[in-house]
């Protein structure tokens, strides 16, 4: 670090240590960011990023260490202290009141008032000023926040941080629910906030984003500092190596693929206007911007949402089907919403893993926990899921391990057709690589007529290009033709997804 040459850092954390029970979450971490600097904080899940930011924002009290904010000693006892001191956090899950208006959300907690009565004029002015600062006067201050797009909601949250006079802004995975254009605009905004002199901490799993948006990066690994440096002079794979502690070979694996008979045939399916065939032994990818209707198409195929028209033929089965029928017909789905839908967080690993198929774990309608545990343990070992055992609650696992449990459910059920909606969202690089390898194994290893077929939706283009055999692009609710992966580039996928090709 090169501080000392310039002014005092905006905030400076030194020797921060935190243990939870016997677990050392942070072991003497140093982290400092200057005013007018974007610093990326990277590390795998469980590296200690959340704990460190929790300490900065007053949600967690450190065991040891020193914190300074603009040179003054800083020790928030609770989140409100941090907010008052000007430290604002923008989390992945936004914390807005959906029924209140944009204006009310922005001034929430700091309403200008006289004798307890809110002065709406001043509130409106504050909100308008904050939105103006973001360069977004197109967001109507009177609209209910719940009616806005995720990107606009995020802006409202940032506007709220500005309205409370923040000096430090922490953005935790801010692009995870944004489409391509919105990411661009967010990056522009970050540059603008930086020029205004805010200190910005940017947390992300995406090295490309880190490279693009940050001036400097700090890597955490296993609760300690694992490296830092100026982003511009560091190659992406070097940063990844610091995160992992060893070099990750090629992230994507690709065995020899050979396609067999068609397992899934989709004809003129609405919504989605989709027609395609998915064959045994192949991975078909669906690209598209957020809100293009990709998840809706998958959910319709799986029977979670009703089809308006068209036909889905799965093996010998056609006609309407509920998820219950789909599993029996040999199709399983991985939800994009791991916490809200994919897993029951309060249940054990074993219950989640075997949830779709409890038969065969005991005679008749019975389920013997010992056999359930044995079945789960097999997959825990096979996928190297890090957990205390099959009875541990899923909520206690890291994101990557949770996702492995969700994937293992499809393997336990032994389905032929796997529908994977954003299978690597929000998980660390090492887990990603393991999931890619697993998907590849499903379609390219073992008996030719036992191989699976995978339908994969992802917002991450390198991932699609890395693992798929064919890719189709969805744009404005319509699925285009599937073409071999060799015919696509990131550029052409984006062109089709954004409708630019059709327009020109």
């Amino acid at each position, binding site marked *: 670090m090169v501080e000392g040459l310039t002014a005092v850092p905006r905030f400076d954390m030194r020797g921060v240590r935190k243990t939870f029970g016997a677990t050392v979450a942070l072991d003497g971490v140093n982290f400092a960011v200057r005013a007018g600097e974007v610093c990326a904080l990277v590390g795998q899940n469980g590296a200690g990023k959340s704990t460190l930011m929790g300490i900065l924002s007053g949600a967690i009290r450190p065991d040891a260490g020193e914190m300074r904010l603009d040179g003054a000693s800083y020790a928030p006892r609770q989140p409100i202290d941090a907010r008052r001191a000007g430290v604002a956090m923008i989390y992945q899950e936004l914390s807005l009141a959906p029924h209140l208006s944009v204006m009310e959300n922005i001034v929430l907690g700091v309403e200008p008032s006289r004798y307890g009565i809110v002065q709406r004029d001043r509130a409106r002015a504050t909100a308008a000023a904050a939105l103006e600062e973001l360069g977004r006067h197109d967001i109507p201050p009177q609209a209910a926040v719940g009616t806005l797009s995720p990107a606009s909601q995020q802006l409202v949250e940032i506007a709220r941080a500005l309205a409370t006079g923040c000096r430090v802004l922490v953005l935790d995975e801010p692009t995870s629910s944004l489409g391509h254009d919105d990411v661009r605009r967010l990056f522009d905004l970050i540059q603008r906030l930086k020029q205004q002199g805010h200190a910005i901490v940017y947390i992300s799993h995406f090295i490309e984003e880190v490279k693009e948006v940050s001036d400097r990066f700090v890597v955490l690994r296993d609760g300690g500092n694992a490296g830092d440096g100026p982003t511009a002079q560091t190659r992406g794979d070097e940063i990844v190596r610091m995160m992992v502690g060893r070099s990750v070979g090629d992230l994507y694996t690709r065995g020899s693929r050979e396609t067999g008979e068609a397992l899934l045939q989709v004809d003129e399916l609405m919504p989605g206007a989709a027609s395609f065939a998915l064959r045994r032994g192949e991975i078909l990818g669906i690209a598209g911007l957020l809100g293009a209707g990709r998840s809706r198409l998958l959910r319709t195929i799986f029977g979670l949402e009703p089809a308006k028209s068209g036909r889905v033929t799965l093996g010998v089965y056609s006609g309407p089907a509920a998820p219950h029928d*789909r599993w029996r017909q040999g199709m399983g789905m991985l939800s994009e919403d791991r916490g809200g839908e994919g897993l029951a967080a309060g249940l054990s690993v074993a219950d989640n893993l075997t949830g779709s198929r409890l038969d065969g774990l005991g005679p008749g309608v019975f389920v013997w926990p010992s056999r359930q545990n044995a079945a789960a343990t097999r997959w825990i070992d096979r996928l190297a899921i890090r957990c*205390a055992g099959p009875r541990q609650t899923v909520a206690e696992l890291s994101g990557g391990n949770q996702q492995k449990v969700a994937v293992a459910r499809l393997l336990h059920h032994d389905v032929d057709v796997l529908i994977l909606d954003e299978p690597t969202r929000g998980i660390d690089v090492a887990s990603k690589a393991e999931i890619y390898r697993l998907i590849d194994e499903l379609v390219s290893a073992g008996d030719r007529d036992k191989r699976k077929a995978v339908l994969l939706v992802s917002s991450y283009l390198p991932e699609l290009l890395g693992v798929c055999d064919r890719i189709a692009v969805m744009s404005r609710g319509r699925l285009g033709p599937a073409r071999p992966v060799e015919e696509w580039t990131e550029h052409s996928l984006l062109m089709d997804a954004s409708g630019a090709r059709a327009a020109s």
Partner: protein
Amino acid sequence: MDRALTVDGRVGRARGLLGARRFLDERGVLVGLVAVALIFGALVGPQFFRAANLELMARQTVIVCVAALGMTMVIVAGGIDLSVGSVVALSTVVVALLLRAGSGPVLAALGTVMAAAVCGALNGLLITRLQVVPFIVTLGTMLLVRGAAKGLADERRIEAPISWLNDLLRTAQDGGGLLLPAGIWLTAALALVVAFTLRYTRFGRHLFAIGSNERTARLCGVRINLNKLAVYTIASAMAGVAGLLEFAKLSVGDPTVAIGLELDVIAAVIIGGGSLLGGKGSVVGTIAGAAIMAIIQIGCSQQGLPNWVQEIITGTIIVGAVALDRWRSRS
């Protein structure tokens, strides 16, 4: 290599912590039960634990217990059933009417349980078809069933000929070698069946899945509506059995009986570790919860404490149990 070691170390320690928490989870209510029993034992004296007194307590609590077994399943599945008190009242009326009409006690009992099950099926159908939250639906059927019971009984108590149904809760000393009243054996048997169902059957595991996260259950192919219909039907049938026990206690059909019983029943489940958010609850806990309430009730009256003291203690224990549960899940 280094990294793997740290991770393994963490996992090992996490297991120890998990064990301690699980101990509290499952035994917490039993510890509470023993504590309450000891306190009243100390207050009342050793005669508090005499067999006759224990049996009195058991008889006092079976009605709540049986209804609470059904409620445990409903609450595990993330639902609630406010209509159980009304179903108990309706059941006393139905069994009295059937007996008076000349049917045998076995037929009368089966008919009553069937009638109660129909009420539950109505709950289940309304909840799944109308997609209305269970609280509202069963609040409605609570009044609806109560009204039906009063209408059926013409707003009077129904006298019925004496049969063995009246002996369900009679002390066994004079009635053969059962040792305990038949109603208590019946409750114990039902408790075993429900506990086994929740733990060791697909249906039971599906109820936990639905209560824990309904969207996940749906994604996993669990037939949500079918399971909900089943659980409300079974819970109401249990309330029907509770109604038979209530009839045995009263020996008449009374449409105004068991008003507010649903709150005792829910309290038993909650004290026993059930969560109104679903996904949690156990039969052992529920029975311990019901027993705690019975001990307080009987202990207070034997100690000569007024009713208001008993209510304050029970209320404190309900809030305390939930607070303890929150604390446990946070640690």
